[in-house]
């Protein structure tokens, strides 16, 4: 009898322990994935470094990709592009030429979207378009709409941010070229917290694979994704806890210009989209993270915006104390710009292959979770 009793106790103890552990595991999964507690997870090596390449100037920005080729635009030499073959590491300077003479410009941004490249100036405003390889830019749009940033979506669609004349606040919109130009602004997308210009500032991103547009606020823990018609809006929270932009603005000067009084608190610094992932550079520390790490690397958080969940984080290492300025993912490569260098990484499966959202179970998971999720996700249609 007593021996039997011991067996019951032994198996009872073991059963209880296993049960407790499984419950801990399941609820921890829940916490990390859905609850947006500010805790990061670092799987081993989602990216591995291939090489660093010195491109001499620190004024480069990522203009776009074409297969293995990376194109860098240059802020201080607006008609210049640098072509970098990511496989062979060959670089080739390219000179762009406008088709007409006497083009006036103030601030030019170049963007590559095969088979075209775009030269854009939202202050004039104009957008030129040319074919890759020919490098001659022809007028595509002139005077239809002012904008302060534009992202080409395809050869006749442009994702823009501008100041709405109606509300005098920053607004997202699209320029569509059919026979003429259609400019559609949606003033409800960007939600003002302070002045509606500085506080809603952020980065505009595009995922060609899933046909989604994204906007990531700089100063608060939110981003949004929508389809190419700016419909089907989803608002997401990041794992950070700062909900309200922490910036302070000075009184307008005599010319009426407003500037920031103190350095703002950046929550989401640089971003890019890759398939179902939205990647955000953040230098904010979560729980269980050591501060020393920030002296040598930058943290990148990966979110699956189709599932509406935080997935994992990884590091991009600094080069001689210089941090990542911007980065992008393209066909198995992750490219980061740091000072005068570019760091080229290889992205590893299954972290970047989009398998997470093509999996049926996960989609079901998402549908279940999106109805009762705490993170604020809203759909407008």
């Amino acid at each position, binding site marked *: *009898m*007593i*021996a039997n*009793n*011991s067996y019951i*106790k*032994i198996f009872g*103890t*073991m059963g*209880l*322990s*296993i049960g*407790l*552990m*499984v419950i*801990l*595991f399941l*609820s*921890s*999964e829940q*916490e*990390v994935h859905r*609850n947006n*507690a500010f*805790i*990061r*997870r*670092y*799987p*081993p090596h989602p990216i591995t470094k291939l090489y660093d390449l010195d491109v001499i100037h620190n004024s480069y920005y990522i203009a776009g990709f074409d297969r293995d080729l990376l194109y860098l635009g240059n802020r201080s030499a607006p008609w210049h592009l640098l072509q970098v073959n990511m496989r062979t590491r060959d670089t080739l300077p390219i000179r762009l030429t406008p088709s007409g003479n006497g083009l006036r410009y103030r601030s030019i941004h170049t963007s590559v979207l095969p088979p075209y490249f775009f030269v854009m100036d939202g202050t004039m405003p104009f957008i030129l378009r040319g074919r890759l390889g020919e490098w001659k830019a022809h007028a595509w749009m002139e005077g239809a709409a002012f904008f302060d940033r534009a992202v080409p979506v395809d050869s006749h669609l442009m994702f823009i941010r501008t100041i709405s004349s109606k509300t005098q606040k920053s607004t997202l919109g699209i320029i569509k070229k059919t026979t003429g130009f259609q400019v559609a602004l949606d003033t409800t997308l960007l939600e003002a917290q302070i002045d509606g210009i500085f506080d809603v500032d952020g980065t505009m991103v595009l995922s060609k694979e899933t046909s989604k547009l994204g906007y990531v606020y700089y100063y608060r823990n939110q981003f949004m994704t929508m389809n190419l018609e700016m419909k089907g809006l989803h608002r997401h929270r990041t794992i950070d806890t700062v909900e309200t932009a922490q910036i302070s603005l000075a009184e307008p000067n005599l010319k009426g210009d407003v500037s920031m009084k103190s350095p703002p608190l950046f929550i989401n610094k640089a971003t890019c989209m890759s398939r179902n992932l939205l990647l955000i550079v953040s230098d904010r520390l979560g*729980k*269980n*993270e*050591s501060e020393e790490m920030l002296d040598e690397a930058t943290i990148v958080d990966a979110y699956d915006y189709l599932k509406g969940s935080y997935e*994992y984080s990884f590091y991009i290492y600094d080069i001689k104390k210089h941090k990542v300025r911007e980065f992008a993912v393209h066909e198995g490569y992750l490219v980061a710009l740091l000072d005068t260098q570019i760091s080229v990484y290889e992205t590893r499966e299954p972290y970047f292959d989009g398998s997470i959202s093509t999996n049926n179970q996960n989609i079901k998971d998402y549908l279940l979770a999106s109805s009762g999720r705490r993170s604020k996700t809203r759909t407008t249609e």
Partner: protein
Amino acid sequence: MKGLKHLQVWIPYAVSILCSILFIYAATSKLWDFQNFKTQLGQSPILTAYAEWVVWLVPLTEYILAFLILADRFRLIALYGTLGLMTMFTTYIVLVLNFSDYIPCTCGGVLEAMGWTEHIIFNAFFIVLVTLAILLSTPKLPPKAIPT
């Protein structure tokens, strides 16, 4: 028969000492490099959300068990406790290996040099020992209950 009787007294005692040494060593090595332990546990895929208090709970439990198991009065309870803790550790490893999104680089804490499979075997060995000790040290077994 006499040797067997001897063994019955000896095994629980030996197992207790062994467990005590293991726990004291494990808990001390965790506290020794506490920051490291905390970081590793925080980044482990299972306990991420509870790392804050688990980092304290685990070494504390290990110390308490290590001392209780040496006292005759509490040995049986402590043995059950050890069995529970060991089962939890093993379950943790099995969950990490099979159901988690990724397998962490280091396991940290107890005997870092061991691989995951060795760890499971090591733990299973201890679970068997402890079970044996519990069965043998259950007080006043009626003679007929031991078939020899």
